[in-house]
């Protein structure tokens, strides 16, 4: 069996590197070489691209009727080869789920709709003219291991179709999906069943609990169909039930439970098999707002320890923002934008996304590190005069005192420092130590009341009290009206600044 270890992306196409083999992926479909055919001949006949790689030696071929020698690299492959090797060397992890050019058309002549789509017809036009309904249209994305990937969109945008394609409850019209580098599309029934049993758990919008089974029997279901012995599966079912806090209800029937409890059972049922990937189709949409929030918290809490890869579908922006490590926005079967929550909020790709996120509450998306400013700091062995000079240079009225590792010790105000100059006291004797601090991941929503209460700046500190930045009112308010431009580079820059700052101090 092929086992991908690393991957690289070349011209938008995927290349897998395996420890013991190779695989071909081309455009939307992928084909395995029939075992009885000579490899080179096969490549030449297909006029296709061929890439082969092993863990430490990535080779890249393009087989456009160009002769291939065993270790040669073909002209246009060279630059990509280096990209590839870089990724190999860095040990870049392969995404858990890779979706490539995936399309689904419902109806009798799906290929026709694909053709029309390629000609630029819209989903609606196609439906009106041909009666074919486009569920998912040319969707590609990766989901990293341990990530909560939220797919959001209006009703009918194809979210359910997309998630059902991932475990092939719906067969795609074109395109392909890899889970752990194994191609799901094209597996035979037995292989597919094995993947569903071992790797994929699913939670449904309307719970889909089996009404004739008790809570425990429901949770056992996935193990039961794998013929796990009764004792072992009851044990595992109990563990899963305990995870969602329903120990008392083990022998109740679904009708006896409230909505929130039912969905906990749904979650436990999906967890009992211990799958790597959870597919959750509007799992919390049928719950009322308070319970829904509980469930979201619970999911996040479970996720802290479990580190599953979760594909979460919702049409609720707030839910997406709360849960998502990354969010994908869908419209008419297409992905419009994929990004981290704050990217989606502050940098919408188009009008549609903008409208979608318009009424979202930024204070529940942005966190302290998004709006913090550089903190001026000094080590306590410096004299009061140096401190005062630094304050004047930077135009600030207070200064943080940090140790050599930039761990926060205290805060001195300009007034105290000027007093100290006359009395000759050291910075460590005059500094205040009970100063407000927050972690960099505190939501603005929780910061605002704090800011109202205190009259000194709030320090943002990381692990071991390391000073990362400072929160000033102006910047926080600016954040609330969307005046932040967060990108990876910026955050990276902030970190670098903080670091070099530390050295300077």
């Amino acid at each position, binding site marked *: 069996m092929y086992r991908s270890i690393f991957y690289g992306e070349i011209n938008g196409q995927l290349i897998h590197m395996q420890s013991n083999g190779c695989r071909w992926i081309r455009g939307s479909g992928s084909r395995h070489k029939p075992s009885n055919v000579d490899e080179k001949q096969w490549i030449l006949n297909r006029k296709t691209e061929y890439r082969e790689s092993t863990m430490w030696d990535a080779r890249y071929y393009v087989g456009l009727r160009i002769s291939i020698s065993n270790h040669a690299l073909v002209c246009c492959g060279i630059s990509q080869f280096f990209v590839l090797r870089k990724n190999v060397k860095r040990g870049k992890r392969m995404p858990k789920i890779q979706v490539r050019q995936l399309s689904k058309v419902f109806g009798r002549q799906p290929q026709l709709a694909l053709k029309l789509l390629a000609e630029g017809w819209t989903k609606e036009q196609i439906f009106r003219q041909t009666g074919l309904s486009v569920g998912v249209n040319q969707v590609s994305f990766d989901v990293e291991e341990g990530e909560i990937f939220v797919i959001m969109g209006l009703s009918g945008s194809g979210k359910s179709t997309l998630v059902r394609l991932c475990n092939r409850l719906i067969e795609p019209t074109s395109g392909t999906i890899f889970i752990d580098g194994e191609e799901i599309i094209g597996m035979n029934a037995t292989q597919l069943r094995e993947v569903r049993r071992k790797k994929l758990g699913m939670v449904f919008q309307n719970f889909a609990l089996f009404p004739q089974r008790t809570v425990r029997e429901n949770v056992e279901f996935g193990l039961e169909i794998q013929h796990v012995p009764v004792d072992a599966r009851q044990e595992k079912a109990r563990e899963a039930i305990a995870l969602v806090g329903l120990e008392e209800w083990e022998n109740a*029937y679904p009708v006896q439970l409230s909505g929130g409890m039912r969905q906990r059972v749904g979650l436990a049922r999906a967890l009992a098999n211990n799958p790597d990937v959870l597919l959750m189709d509007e799992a919390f949409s049928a719950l009322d707002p308070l319970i829904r929030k509980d469930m979201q918290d619970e999911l996040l809490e479970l996720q802290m320890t479990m580190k599953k890869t979760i594909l979460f579908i919702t049409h609720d922006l707030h839910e997406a923002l709360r849960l998502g490590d990354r969010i994908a926005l869908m419209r008419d079967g297409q992905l419009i934008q994929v990004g981290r929550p704050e990217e989606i909020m502050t940098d919408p790709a188009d009008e549609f996304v903008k409208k979608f996120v318009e009424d979202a509450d930024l204070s529940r998306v942005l966190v302290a590190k998004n709006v913090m400013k550089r903190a001026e700091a000094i080590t306590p062995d410096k004299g009061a005069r140096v401190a005062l000079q630094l304050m004047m240079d930077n135009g600030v009225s207070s200064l943080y005192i940090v140790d050599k590792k930039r761990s926060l010790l205290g805060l001195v105000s300009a007034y105290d420092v000027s007093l100290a100059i006359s009395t000759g006291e050291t910075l460590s004797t005059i500094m205040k130590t009970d100063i407000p601090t927050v972690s960099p991941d505190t939501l603005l929503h929780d910061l605002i009341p704090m800011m109202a209460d205190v009259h000194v700046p709030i320090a943002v500190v990381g692990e071991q009290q390391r000073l990362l930045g400072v929160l000033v009112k102006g910047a926080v308010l600016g954040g609330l009206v969307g005046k932040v431009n967060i990108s990876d580079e910026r955050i990276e820059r902030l970190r670098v600044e903080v670091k070099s700052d530390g050295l300077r101090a």
Partner: protein
Amino acid sequence: MDSVPKVPIDKWVEGFVAFLGEYRGELFDPIDSVISGMLTFFSTVLTGVPFFIIILLFGALTWVFGKRNTMITTVIGLSLIYNLGYWENTMETLGLVIVSALVSIVVGIPAGILCARHDAFRNLMTPVLDLMQTMPAFVYLIPAIFFFGLGEVPGVIASVIFAMPPIVRLTNLGIRQVPQELAEAADAFGSTGWQKLWKVQLPLAKTTILAGINQCIMLALSMVVIAAMIGAKGLGADVYRAISQVDIGRGFEAGLSIVIIAIVLDRITQHAGQKERETI
């Protein structure tokens, strides 16, 4: 009009029956022996066991499956039948009904499952089922006698043809009514087709299938008089004799016995389904 020839359906059917007739031995003898074997078994058991044991047994069945108070009705009704002197014939009829119902279930449930899984098969079956239910029984009794001779077996065949459609229909319906999400859940966890059927679809379709069985039994019971006309024993024969002798009193008594049996069987099978629903 003369220029348009008549569609020779009669010839076709006759040809078909004649064709079947040639293979009568191979085709129908096994069916014949299985059904008559079952009939002999049930009538021996039912007439062999003392009447009070049977009455108690039915009382217990209604107690378990039906509503508690119908148990009294059952015991009184069956005792009345004994008192009227129709016990033996009632047991013959019961045997006939049980065999017809068993054959219908054994054939009908798999057929219903196939209908639910394959639209094409359902489309094929629907007109066949319509035909089975509406074609007058005498029409297919003629070939049935031709193949099986007079007696109980063609009676069972006729009952099966008439009584099986509701089982097929309701099994199909019951499975199709299982919410899409539940079937998806079974698939999503990696069930095989059989596992999905056994663990999810059939348990959820159970109530509907039981309703089909209930209807099947009632319809089989309604065929006993017709079956009697071609030589089946039992209450039907009593009714048939009363009709030909214009014996109003005995006719009524035999009819009443059929009604009692019908009520008893109905209560047992009907509530079996309902009880199930309460625990869900």
